[in-house]
């Protein structure tokens, strides 16, 4: 099971809001190569894994990705605090705001909602690990 630890993995302290930046960073939260997909990819692929080293690795990386998800959510939250009317109308953020206001919603930068179609769990460990390489290469 998972136990919440009330801290971020790395400090996030943003002083100045920037809704335009938030509308791009949201893709790292719920985009095709974002942290939500990363954590679900590793944590779902591990059931097919026969090797103890890799059962551990998929569990531990998937868990760390949940910590990354929290950091990226924090980035988006802090970038969109206390916006004035002009800032809400920022090109790129206005279309996000109309649906989600300043809530943190897992979506692509394009606005498409997070989708399990961006990841794969084949039950074939070589195929899964190869997919992990491509996905983690894309998200860095």
């Amino acid at each position: 099971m998972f136990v919440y630890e009330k801290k971020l993995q790395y400090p996030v302290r943003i002083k100045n809001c920037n809704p335009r930046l938030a509308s791009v960073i949201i893709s790292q939260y719920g985009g095709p190569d974002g942290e939500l997909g990363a954590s679900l990819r590793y944590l779902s692929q591990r059931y097919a894994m026969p090797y103890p080293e890799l059962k551990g690795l998929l569990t531990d990386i998937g868990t760390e990705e949940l910590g990354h998800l929290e950091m990226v959510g924090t980035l988006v939250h802090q970038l969109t605090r206390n916006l004035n009317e002009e800032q809400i109308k920022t090109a790129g953020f206005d279309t996000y705001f109309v649906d989600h206001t300043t809530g943190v919603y897992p979506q692509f930068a394009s606005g498409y909602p997070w989708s399990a179609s961006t990841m794969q769990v084949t039950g074939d460990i070589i195929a899964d690990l190869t997919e992990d390489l491509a996905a983690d290469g894309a998200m860095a």
Partner: protein
Amino acid sequence: MNPDTGTTTRPCGDACGTMPPCAPLAVPYVPFQQEGSQKYDQTNTLANGTMFPGLNLPFHLKVDAASLPANRSTQLQALLFVITELGLYLDTHRNDAEAFQLFQQYSEMARNAKKQYEEAHGPLTQLSAGQDAAYRWLDDPWPWEFEKNEGE
């Protein structure tokens, strides 16, 4: 121990790893990180996002690590990030006695740092919330909250 060669020698440079001499076709490979790889201390581990200089591949030629404020919170984050990093390394190098010894040392330091952090800032987990005289789990700030000018 290197699973490919059964040796503890380091045939490759620190930023390189071993590969199987004969490998099945049509399967991609990732070089295997060697035992005894160079390591950063905890502050530089957190600032660089990896414990291992050989795995530090900054994108867009950004070579300077971030500078972090030295406070109780970042000290704890640094120690726990080392636990994460060394833990991942040990998942695939569990017979590296030197790395495990380091893991034990950092684990002790992290436990102490957690205790000190909780005494100053309140519980990190619900389990430790039970050790306080009152229920402090709900105390602000939550991790995503940071007020302008906070801590300045």
